[in-house]
Structure formats: structure tokens, C-alpha cells
């Protein structure tokens, strides 16, 4: 080994692996980005699998040839089923992962598929492979045109079935060929089917990189189940890679580096080591409450979008759901969710989270999230338009349905209701009046509910942050949404990539607004939380604690890191950092100040991407 990592290499990983590029061409390092499919790091030689679409012969057949082609097709179906069955039987992964293979088996011998292919052979006089190819393309196109993105992606399942059939028909070897010998490698392919992925084992495959696929594709799901790091959707990697050369894979961030320098390799090895120890340490400590080094408790909660995420959040150590974005119940469908459906969904979240609390945010529909069930108004500037609580007050019947469902759900756990996008006091009062109406309705029907239902508001519009004192008198709790607060305070469209540098939560103007809200909360005895990406950044989280915040809500996957970071600082250190940062005039200076104070003791938590 020519370029060892500086802190003693993990012998089980990459022993005997030539770390430098094995080609003689002095090609420069190349960093490609894709989608983070399965977390973890890997460094090692690559093995490129060429599973290019089997060339489909277009051969017209005579009347006499029909029987032969039909028979070839039927045999191919049987053979494909046998092959798939074998993978199912030898797989060590169970449950949902193999049930997709069971579905493929049904699809291969599907009567609709059989009938259509036989039809093509008989009436169009096409050879079996041409007939299969045509039918599969048509079917997959139908699904691709579905308005539902998840279903559209399922066209891959149909294409996979077609590919397996074509392979058998054309006599090309089935499955992928792995290199001989014990050396583990990084598998690079245009695409991998779930069956192929299932055939892989951790001792041979360090990581997967594919040109196709998304985070929700079955290959990514299986890679996570097998604990193999994976990056999907790396466009054009096959044309850039020299087979056999070394690559770095960062499956946590979706980055692949080809021909990395020895320094990059050393850094990545270090990160991999840290990733492993941090991940296992975080897993061990996830049940313990979060405290600063000096023992002050900080509540870390999770932001969720779907009810099923509540359990994952709790497994990650969340001390409740700090932000349940209910609008996702309204999206990706053609009708509106009924009161009953909403009630059932919210009740499930409250039940699975109890005795911890759930902050249910009423729908933030509008701007970039508009359901098909509501006619989207044409607005030149939707972020500043009819959205969230404004839409709710404009459409009280819609809002009351949700409020009644929320009120009823409070009977199942500890719930509180949060209003998004409040910019003026009358909006809060209007919403409170509607909540009272919903409570009266529920009571009149004799349905159960919690005796107290706290009503709070998001502080994400600068007007609300500036008038925090006024709002703290009205709202029982405040939750600062930093993403929108940054966008509205700095007049920066957060989806504009060119302006990304301007959109910093470390901007002093944003920090002053946040601090103003925290002070108002203290004065009026209201709890204040921060949700949004600022809470999930370890350095920013320390700064927030220094300002006086004791409740942060973030995506579940960030909880472990933030918990670890807060455990390494004392409250007085955090407060001193805020005092120092409060007088700075630029976001970058704040970032530097925090990094100087805290980065040395948490470099393992701050690693970002493989460069």
C-alpha cells in the first residue's frame, strides 16, 4: 500500500488494495455528483459492469415461424422465472426486499404481458425479442405518463422484467460477472436491477455507483438494507472512468471521486473511519437525552412529512415531533383529504409519538407546494402570495376540516397546533377564532379531544420576528422557521443557486431577528423553538443554544450529530460565542468565528463532502 491513511488503516477494509490509479495515463482527478442512495464511505478499485441494453434483433418472421417464436418466448418466461426464484431462495435479505422479486416473478408470467407478446408475434410477425421489446416499451411508457411520480418511476420495474426476458432470449449470460479473487471493489454500472443488487455481498462489494436510479429506486433501498454505500444517478460516469482505477465513494452525500489524489484518499479514509465510529456511537447513545457538556438539557425533535416517519424519528432519538408538515397529505393526489382521513393520520402520529409531544403545523400550501385538488392561482410571485395561513383564512371550509381533524386527534396523545406564515396579528386572531369553532363542533358531536390544545405560530416572516413581543402575547408558543426567515429577510429566492451564498442563516440580520424572538419568548414565558436547516447545522445549533434556545427541531438524520456537538460544549462557551458573533457584520465572519471556537473539537462531526 503506497498511501496509507494517517491514523492506522482498518485492515478489514481494502487490505491489499492498490490505492493509486492503476492506469498509466496521468488523468486528473474528477469529482462527480449524484444522489446519496445509501450512506457510508468507500475507497477502492472499481469494477465496471457493462450491462448495456441487450441489442434487440428486429427480425420479421414468416407464417411458419410463428409457432417457433411463441415457443421461444414461453421458454424464456419459464427460464426467467427459474432464475428469479433462485435469487429469492438464496437471498439472505427478507421481507420487503424479496417481495419485490416475488412481484417480478408474477410480472414475468403475467397474462396481459403474455397475451400482448403473443399477439405481436402472431399478427405483426415479429420475432420473440422484438415483440417483447415493443410490448415492454409500450407498458413502461403508460406508467411513465402517470402524473404520480412514484408510479412513473415504477416503469423501471417493467423495463427490468423486459431486460431479463431479453437476456434469456438472446442467450446473453444472466446476472453480472464479478472479478475473480478476494479483493473487494466498487461496482460501477449503468443500472443495477434489484435482483443483481441482492446478489451482492459486503465482503466483495465496497460500494455501488450507478448512472440510473434515484433514492427511492429499489436498488437504493436494497443497498441500504445490505449496508453497502451507494451513489445513484451519476450521469455519464461510464464514459469517464478507466476500468480498475481507484475511486472514492461518499454515499452519505452522493459524491464519487475518480482518480483521487493521495491526499484526498487519506482524508476520505479518515472520514470513513470517523463516519463508522460516529455512526456506531450515535446509535448507542440515541436513547440518552441531549445535554450540553455542563448538563443543561436541550430538546432535539424531528421534522416529519409523512406519518410513517414518526417511528424512524423516534428511533433516531428524537424527543418528539417538532414540526409535522401536514400539507404533504394534500399533495400528489387529485382529491382533498377528508376530515376522517386526516383525523386517522394525525391520530396515528400522536399515538406512536406519545408520551412525547407532536407539533402539528396546519397546511402550508402555496408557493412551491400546490395540490392538484385546489386550483392554483396564477401568481407572479407565489412565495409572497396566497399561501399557508393566508389561504386557510381565505378558504375557511378547507381550514375548518383540517382543524376539526386536528382537534379530534389530540385525544390520542400530546398535540399542539402551529400556524405557518403569520405576518400580522389579525391573521393569528382569525385562525384562533376558527380553531375555537372547530373545538365547538367537535364538542357538539360529543367526540373526545384533549382539554388543552396549545396554539402557536411560526416566526418566518420578518414582520413577526420584529413584532415578536406582540405575537408572544397572543401565541402560546413560537417556532422559528429559518429557511423562510432567511429568504424573506435577505430578499433571496432560496431556490436560486446563484444566490446561495447570500442566503445564509449566519447573516447578522437573521441572527438579530432570531435573538429578538428568543428574548420575547423569555419575557412572556412562551417556549421558543427553531425548526429549519439552521437547527441541523452543528455550529449553528451551538450558537442557538448560546442565544438561549433549548428546543431545536430538524430532520431525523441530523439529530445524532447535533446531539454529539452540543454534548461537547458548555452553555457558557455557547453564550460567549453568541456575544462575540452578535457584533460581527458579515455571515462569513460569524461562520469563521464559530469554526475557530468549536471546529477543532468536532472535526469528526463537521465533515462535509469528499473533494
Amino acid at each position, binding site marked *: 500500500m503506497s498511501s496509507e491513511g494517517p491514523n492506522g488503516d482498518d485492515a478489514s477494509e481494502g487490505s491489499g488494495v492498490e490505492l493509486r490509479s492503476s492506469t498509466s495515463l496521468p488523468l486528473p482527478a474528477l469529482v462527480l455528483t449524484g444522489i446519496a442512495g445509501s450512506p457510508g464511505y468507500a475507497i477502492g478499485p472499481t469494477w465496471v459492469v457493462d450491462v448495456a441494453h441487450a441489442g434487440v434483433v428486429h427480425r420479421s418472421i414468416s407464417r411458419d415461424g410463428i409457432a417457433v417464436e411463441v415457443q421461444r418466448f414461453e421458454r424464456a418466461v419459464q427460464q426467467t422465472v427459474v432464475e428469479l426464484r433462485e435469487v429469492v431462495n438464496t437471498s439472505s435479505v427478507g421481507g*420487503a426486499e424479496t417481495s*419485490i422479486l*416475488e*412481484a417480478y416473478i*408474477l410480472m414475468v408470467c403475467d397474462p*396481459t404481458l403474455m397475451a400482448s407478446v403473443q399477439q405481436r408475434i402472431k399478427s405483426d410477425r415479429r420475432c420473440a425479442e422484438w415483440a417483447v421489446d415493443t410490448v415492454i416499451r409500450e*407498458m413502461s411508457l403508460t406508467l411513465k405518463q402517470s402524473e404520480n411520480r*412514484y408510479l412513473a418511476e415504477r416503469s423501471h420495474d417493467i423495463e427490468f422484467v423486459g431486460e431479463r426476458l431479453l437476456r434469456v432470449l438472446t442467450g446473453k449470460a444472466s446476472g453480472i460477472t464479478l472479478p475473480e479473487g478476494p479483493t473487494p471493489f466498487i461496482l460501477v454500472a449503468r443500472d443495477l436491477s434489484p435482483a443483481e443488487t441482492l446478489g451482492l455481498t459486503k465482503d466483495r462489494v465496497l460500494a455501488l455507483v450507478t448512472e440510473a436510479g434515484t433514492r427511492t429506486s429499489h436498488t437504493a433501498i436494497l443497498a441500504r438494507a445490505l449496508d453497502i454505500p451507494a451513489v445513484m444517478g451519476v450521469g455519464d460516469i461510464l464514459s469517464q472512468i478507466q476500468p480498475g482505477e481507484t475511486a472514492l465513494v461518499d454515499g452519505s452525500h452522493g459524491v464519487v471521486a475518480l482518480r483521487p489524489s493521495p491526499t484526498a484518499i487519506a482524508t476520505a479514509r479518515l472520514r470513513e473511519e470517523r463516519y463508522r465510529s460516529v455512526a456506531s456511537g450515535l446509535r448507542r447513545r440515541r436513547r440518552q437525552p441531549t445535554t450540553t457538556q455542563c448538563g443543561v438539557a436541550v430538546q432535539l425533535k424531528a421534522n416529519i412529512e409523512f406519518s410513517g416517519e414518526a417511528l424512524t424519528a423516534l428511533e433516531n432519538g428524537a424527543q418528539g415531533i417538532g414540526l409535522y408538515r401536514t400539507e404533504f397529505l394534500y399533495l400528489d*393526489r387529485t382529491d382533498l383529504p377528508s376530515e376522517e382521513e386526516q383525523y386517522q393520520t394525525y391520530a396515528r402520529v400522536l399515538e406512536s409519538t406519545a408520551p412525547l409531544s407532536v407539533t402539528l403545523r396546519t397546511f402550508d400550501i402555496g408557493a412551491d407546494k400546490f395540490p392538484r385538488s385546489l386550483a392554483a392561482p396564477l401568481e407572479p410571485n407565489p412565495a409572497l402570495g396566497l399561501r399557508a395561513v393566508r389561504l386557510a383564512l381565505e378558504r375557511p371550509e378547507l381550514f375548518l376540516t383540517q382543524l376539526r381533524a386536528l382537534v379530534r386527534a389530540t385525544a390520542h396523545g400530546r398535540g399542539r397546533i402551529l400556524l405557518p406564515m403569520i405576518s400580522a396579528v389579525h391573521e393569528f386572531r382569525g385562525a384562533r377564532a376558527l380553531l375555537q369553532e372547530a373545538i365547538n363542533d367537535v364538542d357538539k358531536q360529543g367526540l373526545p379531544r384533549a382539554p388543552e390544545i396549545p396554539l402557536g405560530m411560526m416566526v418566518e416572516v420578518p414582520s413577526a420576528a420584529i413584532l415578536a413581543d406582540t405575537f408572544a402575547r397572543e401565541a402560546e408558543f413560537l417556532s422559528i422557521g429559518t429557511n423562510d426567515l432567511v429568504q424573506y429577510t435577505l430578499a433571496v429566492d432560496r431556490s436560486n443557486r446563484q444566490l446561495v451564498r447570500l442566503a445564509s442563516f449566519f447573516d447578522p440580520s437573521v441572527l438579530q431577528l432570531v435573538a429578538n424572538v428568543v428574548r420575547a419568548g423569555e419575557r412572556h414565558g412562551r417556549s421558543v423553538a427553531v425548526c429549519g436547516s439552521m437547527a441541523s447545522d452543528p455550529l449553528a445549533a451551538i450558537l442557538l443554544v448560546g442565544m438561549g434556545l433549548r428546543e431545536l427541531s430538524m430532520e431525523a438524520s441530523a439529530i445524532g450529530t447535533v446531539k454529539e456537538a452540543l454534548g461537547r460544549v458548555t452553555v457558557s462557551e455557547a453564550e460567549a460565542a453568541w456575544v462575540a458573533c452578535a457584533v460581527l457584520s458579515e455571515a462569513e465572519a460569524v461562520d469563521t468565528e464559530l469554526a475557530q471556537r468549536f471546529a477543532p473539537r468536532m472535526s469528526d462531526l463537521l465533515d462535509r463532502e469528499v473533494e
Partner: protein
Amino acid sequence: MNTFEATFEIVNNLGLHARAASRLVQLASRFPCEVEVANGEQSANAKSVMGVLLLCGAKGTRVRVIATGEDSERAVSEIGALIASRFGESE
């Protein structure tokens, strides 16, 4: 011939994707009667995964299940129960 028919709403988040469709097909195949699933004007043999998949039944879609022949009533009600159970998906 006794024909039974009922309408059910797809309530699982992922809709009638491959695994859900195959569960439905496996269930329908246990009954001797003919079973059809329809989404609007499009209908499919409930014993064909491809057919069911191509109905593009996203969450919120209302599908009609029509069974004709022996045991048709039970076929419709059991399929309805499977749809309502979210095909056994946790969410």
C-alpha cells in the same frame, strides 16, 4: 351469473405499485370467479400484475372491483379489505 361490484379508495401512500399490485393479483387468483379492476374507463384483469400496474392507481384513486361467478361476493370484499389495509405497508 352473479356479479358483485364495489368501489374502494387506494389509501396507501405509494399507490398500486409493483408489490401492492402483486398482492392484489395473488389474492384475486385464489378465487375461481373472474375479477376485474377499473380506474375510470380503463379496466384490467385483476389476475394480471401488468394490467393492475398499468391502471396507474395513485393514492386517492377510486377503483371499482367487479367479480363475476363463483365466490364473487367474497372476492370483492377481501380485495376491498386488502386495499383498506394499505396492502400491509406500514404507511
